[in-house]
């Protein structure tokens, strides 16, 4: 029996194995992902991002636990990304430490993933792992990004609902109005809300959003709720779960989910086409031509774009 069939039948060892093969770009992994693809598109994908130390893993732990004990009891998969060392390529993946409440629940699957040099808060294969978990039949797939600052917004292109986690005392108003991570939030969580400054942080974020979403537009746009939580105790986490369901309804009701899928598939195909065209060109041409062009660029005789155009036109540089 092939891996994809085993995965569809609920074999968790086969799932673990398939995720490794996909992550390693192994042909068997790509084959398995292709076989699962007709079963994808059902899962709701939730991204959780925010700076280091805001409590992302703890929130994922409590959120998954709350969902599993709620009315609909959805099955939950978690992909938790941590950074790889740029020097050795090694990584310590420690997100499971905070996810002990989920141990022993067969409706939960947690996979740690190293970023393997990718920037943007995710690993290159994160989207493929999420697709495999979707195809495996999980109702909700959560992605926890690496501790993210202001520009790690890749998650918004992968997740249907993006949760940005903040904590009191990490930034002032100016941080909040900077472009970037706050703009991608569908739900804003102020975690560690039992700490001093939490009320201020909630008020400040709400005021910022108020300015960004004038009331005239109410209804046509999603206005991200700002929700205080104490994830270690579970306070406020039920409200976050409800906000995810509301956001899902909004996406479906306004046709945005369909548009998201179309944009996402288009972007992925375009990226793969670019990669494939490069490989194709490399196969059809000798390395010498590229190297010769490179030398001309280094000698400042040609600009990089000019050199590439010459190579593509088949001319000698």
């Amino acid at each position, binding site marked *: 029996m092939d891996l994809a069939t085993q995965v569809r039948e609920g074999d*968790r*060892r086969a799932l*673990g194995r398939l995720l490794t093969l996909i992550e390693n770009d192994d042909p068997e992994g790509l084959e398995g992902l292709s076989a699962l693809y007709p079963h994808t598109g059902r899962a709701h994908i939730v991204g959780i991002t925010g700076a280091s130390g805001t409590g992302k893993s703890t929130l994922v732990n409590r959120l998954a636990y709350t969902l599993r004990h709620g009315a609909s009891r959805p099955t939950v998969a978690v992909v938790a990304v941590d950074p790889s060392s740029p020097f*050795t*390529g090694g990584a310590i*993946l420690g997100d*499971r430490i905070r996810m002990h409440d989920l141990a022993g629940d067969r409706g939960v699957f947690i*996979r740690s993933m190293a970023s393997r040099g990718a920037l943007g808060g995710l690993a290159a294969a994160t989207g493929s792992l999420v697709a495999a978990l979707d195809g495996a039949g999980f109702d909700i797939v959560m992605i926890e990004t690496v501790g993210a600052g202001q520009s790690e917004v890749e998650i918004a292109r992968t997740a249907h609902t993006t949760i940005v986690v903040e904590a009191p005392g990490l930034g002032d108003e100016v941080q909040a109005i900077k472009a970037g991570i706050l703009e991608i939030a569908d739900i804003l969580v102020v975690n560690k809300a039992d700490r001093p400054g939490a009320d201020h942080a909630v008020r400040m974020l709400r005021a910022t959003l108020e300015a960004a979403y004038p009331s005239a537009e109410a209804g046509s746009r999603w206005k991200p709720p700002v929700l205080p939580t104490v994830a270690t105790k579970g306070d406020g986490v039920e409200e976050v779960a409800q906000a995810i369901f509301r956001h899902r309804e909004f996406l479906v009701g306004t046709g945005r989910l369909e548009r998201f899928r179309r944009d996402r598939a288009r972007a992925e195909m375009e990226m793969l086409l670019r990669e494939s065209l490069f490989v194709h060109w490399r196969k059809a041409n000798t390395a010498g031509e590229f190297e010769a062009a490179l030398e001309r660029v280094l000698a400042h005789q040609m600009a990089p774009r000019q050199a590439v155009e010459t190579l593509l036109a088949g001319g000698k540089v």
Partner: protein
Amino acid sequence: MPQKKTRVLVAKPGLDGHDRGAKVIARALRDSGMEVIYTGLRQTPEMIAEAALHEDVDVVGLSVLSGAHMALVPRVLELLRGQGQGHVRVLVGGIIPDEDVPALKALGVAEIFGPGTTTHSVVEAVRKAVATGQAEA
């Protein structure tokens, strides 16, 4: 670009609260280019086996300082085999009396490390264990 990385689960079964050794080992394995899943203190054998399944690791490193190794280690091995992960190599570090070493090795523990072991020798042992485990998988 296919890239195969060795994945290691470093876990602390049982109730002792001393994880400095486990963290030193985790860091040394990371510095040798491996991906180390660290799960923290007070893990049951069931939690360790579940993590090994989800994470599809090549090696499980157990740190036991409590003296409960003769109960915990065989249970982890049994659970791994029971879930079709007999190829996963198990290494044990901590305070293991000499007289227990042959019994643990007979059960299938690849290597046992006591106090004073260099991180270099642990990294080498993990590399060797991965090679033998893959030959069997």
